[in-house]
């Protein structure tokens, strides 16, 4: 029986990541034990994760009080920091898994790896304070998370690939408190029995709602109003024990003459309430992330595609609606209402969704979960780019997916595809030009160290391509991650590894060109077939 240590210190989202990770470990190594290291402030949430044998916590509040204290030496704060770590440093771990992108987690992962030479997953810090990724998937994970605003594959997919477990929809990551779940069930059952038999309970979580720029107060009011107008839907406000949340929820309730049903939930009772609701809607909050892994149908209200993709959906049973800031609240509320009905399987007319919103659903393939547009304003350009970048990552990691299954090429206009291919090619050409420049200056540096400055400038120019959002930028970011991981102590060895990485980048850019050409050929062929089919259909009545 081996031991695995999960480190999740960033926030409650890193705990949800830890919950998913634990599930993958259990699946692959059912007899092994899993322990978790987190902050004291997150302990209550951590206790809801299933499969964790022991939770160790670092008390940040106490450390910060000690640091500020007049009589304390920082050494006392170090004592507080070390005390939960000391017993962990004596254990021989099978692997240490860093579940977030924070520096403190990466540094602590390094403590274990350097001390015991154990395996690690995720990222750790190197000798020069550089970030080192455990494997290709960790590299993709931390690169996408750190450098790019937009994630083209979800962290759940990264987990699937890291642990070599198949994508699935299991919802037993969270430890449900039986007593609380049954109480929530009974309470909600009473509401169901007081309403028509086909009435569905829709949860509207208002956690940190005062900070939500997407699901604003006006939009919340309009949305709840539209739910109330539908006899088949019943809204339930979920609020926390936090004072600000309470005030916000009361203000919302006041708009409806205090007639709304409000549930005050904490981290222990939230999962119990979520599993008993028919659906949940809201902006980005931990309640939605939790509902996702519990399998409760959900509708996320996002401001843009980046925020939709950053949420790492794991279940199919959800929709994301992307709204624009300027759209009237009533229009958004109507779109949300149609989306809820679609989520609940009521088959509403999706073409009633306004052109200021875009509705996405999620599907699964061998690679993991992906977003797929079902209604709303035309997002062909984004959809194409998203699927191509995802396809490139699959190609890159040698786990190919059938791109034509994830995007409907018949509906992509040929000129959109041609324009995309041209833009991508131009970006690759520019990156290739800077790559050759960097290679030249590297060769010069090998002969004469005085050219090192010129080489660094060229390298910097090459890295800048990583700031864009295209396939070339992916190649450049992966290149950067490889460069960051170089740890050789001597100059010559470093230069050799740099050269190797540059040649690999060259190969990656060429592979990208090959992929773009394949897609173009495929689309051309499909377009030809579609035209032939259209001609056949036109001719059929005359035959």
């Amino acid at each position, binding site marked *: 029986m081996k031991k695995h240590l999960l480190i999740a210190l960033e926030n409650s989202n890193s705990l949800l990541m830890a919950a998913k990770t634990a599930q993958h470990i259990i699946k692959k190594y059912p007899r092994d034990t899993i322990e978790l290291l987190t902050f004291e402030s997150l302990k209550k949430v951590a206790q809801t994760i299933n499969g964790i044998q022991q939770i160790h916590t670092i008390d940040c509040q106490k*450390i910060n009080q000690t*640091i500020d*204290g*007049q009589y*304390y030496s*920082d*050494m006392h704060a170090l004592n507080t920091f070390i005390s939960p770590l000391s017993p962990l440093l004596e254990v021989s771990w099978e692997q240490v898994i860093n579940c977030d992108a924070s520096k403190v987690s990466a540094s602590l992962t390094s*403590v274990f790896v350097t001390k015991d030479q154990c395996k690690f997953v995720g990222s750790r810090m190197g000798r020069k304070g550089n970030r080192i990724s455990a494997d290709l998937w960790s590299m993709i994970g931390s690169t996408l998370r750190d450098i790019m605003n937009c994630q083209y594959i979800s962290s759940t997919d990264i987990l699937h690939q890291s642990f070599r477990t198949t994508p699935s929809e299991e919802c037993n990551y969270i430890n449900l408190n039986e007593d609380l779940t049954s109480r929530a069930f009974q309470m909600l059952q009473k509401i169901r029995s007081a309403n028509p038999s086909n009435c569905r309970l829709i949860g509207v979580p208002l*956690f940190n709602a005062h900070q939500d720029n997407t699901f604003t107060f006006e939009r919340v009011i309009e949305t709840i109003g539209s739910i109330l107008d539908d006899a088949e839907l019943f809204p339930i406000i979920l609020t926390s024990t936090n004072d600000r949340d309470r005030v916000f929820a009361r203000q919302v309730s006041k708009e409806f003459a205090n007639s709304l049903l409000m549930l005050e939930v904490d981290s222990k009772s939230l999962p119990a309430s979520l599993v008993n609701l028919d659906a949940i809607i809201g902006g980005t909050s931990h309640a939605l992330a939790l509902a996702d892994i519990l399998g409760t149908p959900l509708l996320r209200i996002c401001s843009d595609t980046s925020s939709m993709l950053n949420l790492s959906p794991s279940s199919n049973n959800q929709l994301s609606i992307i709204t624009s800031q300027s759209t009237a609240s009533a229009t958004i509320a109507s779109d949300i209402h149609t989306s809820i009905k679609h989520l609940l399987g009521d088959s509403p007319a999706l073409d009633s969704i306004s052109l200021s919103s875009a509705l996405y659903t999620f599907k699964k393939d061998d690679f993991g979960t992906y977003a797929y547009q079902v209604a709303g304003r035309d997002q062909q350009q984004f959809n194409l780019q998203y699927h191509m970048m995802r396809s490139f990552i699959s190609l890159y990691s040698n786990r190919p997916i059938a791109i034509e299954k994830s995007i409907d090429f018949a509906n992509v206009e040929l000129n959109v595809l041609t324009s995309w291919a041209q833009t991508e090619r131009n970006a690759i050409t520019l990156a290739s030009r800077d790559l050759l420049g960097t290679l030249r200056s590297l060769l010069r540096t090998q002969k004469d160290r005085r050219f090192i400055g010129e080489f660094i400038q060229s390298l910097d120019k090459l890295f800048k391509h990583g700031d864009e959002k295209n396939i070339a930028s992916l190649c450049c970011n992966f290149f950067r991650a490889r460069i960051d991981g170089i740890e050789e102590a001597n100059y010559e060895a470093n230069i050799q590894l740099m050269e190797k990485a540059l040649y690999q980048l060259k190969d990656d850019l060429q592979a990208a060109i090959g992929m773009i050409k394949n897609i173009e050929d495929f689309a051309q062929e499909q377009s030809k077939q579609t035209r032939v089919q259209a001609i056949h259909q036109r001719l059929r009545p005359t035959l």
Partner: protein
Amino acid sequence: MKDSTSHLQIKTSKSGHLIPVINQIFLHSEYDPIREAKKFADDHESLIFKNSHLIVYGLGFGYHLVELIDRLIKVHGMSAKITVVEPYEDLVTAFQENSFPFSKLISIYCTKDINQLFKQADFIEAISSKPPILKHPQSYMLSKDFFDQIGNYQTPQDLKTTRIYLKDFSVRRELGHYSQQSNLHQIFRENNCHDKWIDHLIAAFGEVAYQHEQGEMN
């Protein structure tokens, strides 16, 4: 630490209570230490009402402490707490030998060395919450210089002095690799080469202590 210059005698008051005398100074009333203790507590009634934790300079034979803790418990229940500082070890020994019944809510710290006093983490924890300080008049008069140093104490931060505070011996040993004149903050800021596990540990600690803002539940 035993003080060779001090001379402790134990005498009996007119009311029949034992009273310590150091260098001819009576630490309690020669007539009735209990009545004196009640008056001492009366004088600090408002502080007792507002605070569940008090620091008292001077142990004597504890008559004033018994009175104070009784009143604190009445107001604050079992969260009441008294931290006592007493420089005379002989006095503490004599007090314990005479086995006075004493509340567990009273903690006594005995040392004449101010640095030793501030090496004790629980004492620092007690004093850092800034509870009111009550000076037992006779004890304070006897050791005024010592007690005054407590308030003005400047905590050392250099590794050489503070490394011994660490409870984990492997970390304490590994910290020996750094310059002993520097402090943890400097090491965190200036150490760019992370060859050993201790370097990573300090980096992680620095992120939490000097930079990290606690993750919020979103």
